[in-house]
């Protein structure tokens, strides 16, 4: 188990991300609502850089009690990150693929030491 320095917390803004290389692995580290999350930067689809694309709220659809649709909207609570190759979307808090939650990016532990963030691989 190796710890790799990611960034100073004071320089790692909420909603931002970092990509670090550890040996032959690339890991994406996200900060969302004060929490840190780290995942493999290799998409489960065709191996794209899963963590390097757009970070965007999950899209939901408003279905009313009478089963009619009132259109799509951005979630206020759920955030995804998107592989830039083909658009595979991942839940930022779990690394699960939104289209099939059985598919999941490998998750890594993130530790904070004082003002510094490390990822454990």
């Amino acid at each position, binding site marked *: 188990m190796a710890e790799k320095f990611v960034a100073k917390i004071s320089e790692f803004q909420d909603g931002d991300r970092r990509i670090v290389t550890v040996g032959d692995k690339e890991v994406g580290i996200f900060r969302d609502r004060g929490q840190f999350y780290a995942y493999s930067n290799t998409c489960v689809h*065709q*191996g794209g*850089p899963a963590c390097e694309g*757009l*970070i*965007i*709220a999950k899209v939901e659809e408003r279905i009313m009690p009478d089963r009619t649709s009132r259109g799509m909207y951005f979630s206020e609570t759920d955030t995804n990150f998107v592989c830039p190759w083909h*658009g595979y979307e991942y839940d930022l808090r779990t690394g699960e693929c939104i289209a099939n939650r059985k598919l999941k990016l490998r998750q890594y532990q993130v530790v904070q030491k004082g003002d510094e963030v490390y990822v454990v691989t």
Partner: protein
Amino acid sequence: MDLVSDRGRRVSVEELNTTQLLANAAKQARQRNYDDFIIVDVDAHHYENEHFSEIAPFMENDVLRQLSLSGAAKTGRQAIMPIQIGFQDMGGRVTRYPLRATEKTPDGTLRDVELGYRWMDAMGVDYSCLFPTGMLNIGLHPQKDMEADLCWGYNRWVTEKVLPETGGRMYSMLCLPFSDAEESLRQVEAFGGRKGVTGFMITSVRDVPVHDNRYMKVYRAIEERGLAIAFHAAFNWYEPIFKGLNRFISVHALGFTVSNMIHMTNWVINGLGERFPKLPVLWVESGLAWVPFLMQRLDHEYMMRSSECPTLKKKPSDYMRDMYYSTQPMEIQDMQALETTFRMINAETQLLYSSDYPHWDFDLPSTIYDLPFLSEKARHNILGGTAARLFKLPPRNEKQKQNLIKYGNLPV
């Protein structure tokens, strides 16, 4: 660089560099030792619609050229080509769309060629067939003479300005103005012998009957020259049957398959396979799942209604097995279904790898290389051996040459 996310929020991403974006593809190429394979991408694209100011001067008719040149100068405000509503970039999620203009290329190089080299080298592709993007809608142009002249201008520009700069690594199947059979024939005669031309493309979004007698001389001219014909699929959201579809995913999934299914049905049922037995016919960018469906459907009806297609000497599926298919976008969802599809189309000799890069649903060579049910021969043939034989593309190193010979794609 910033991209716009939900509610106008801005997200920082690296500026676009194709080599960097495809770094993981390059890693796959090294791990799988693609150098030993000749890899031919039979369907890749460039954005010719960004070069109309260069293409228009090659048009023949003074008046149409002047209209096009003036229109090209007003980029974004006046369409020269029929255009579609489309959300290929998924709201910026597929970042190479919004960032494309930011990618830097060296002065003195042809931008489309430079970008082509970058993705080809990253993926391990040796040769690619260059198809246009915006011109895939040329069949919807309401002006027959403008369609013909735009095709003429594009075909001249590609063969005189683009392909000569590619070091032989890019070739093309040129765009036919298929609304006009006489003009299509003239362009086959004019361009069929040019370097880097391996055949001609019919853009599938059009409602002409491909079996109409007026086209027979066009097919014969292509066949006589030892060239191939490709039907390149696309979608048309304005098609009456598609107007009820409310999401891009729906019209894209159906449009690319239905457009080719219509032409395939006419081609087979009217016996064009009997009339042009030496003409290689290639079906491009419809994926593969539609083929077993259509084979079964046509065979089933043929057994009862053979009197309606007296030219046929075998089942429709047998003619479909004589034709060629590009892989992308390959539906790798049910491995058994995919394996059955490969068996039904004789993939070992009839299937050709394609990436469709840089479009949003591109496929890497690993989509073929990693399939668990392929023989070594099938893997080599699909990735490029069959295309190398079909389009007469030479090996780029000794190992590739040995493999082409080993699997029957190059005479000893």
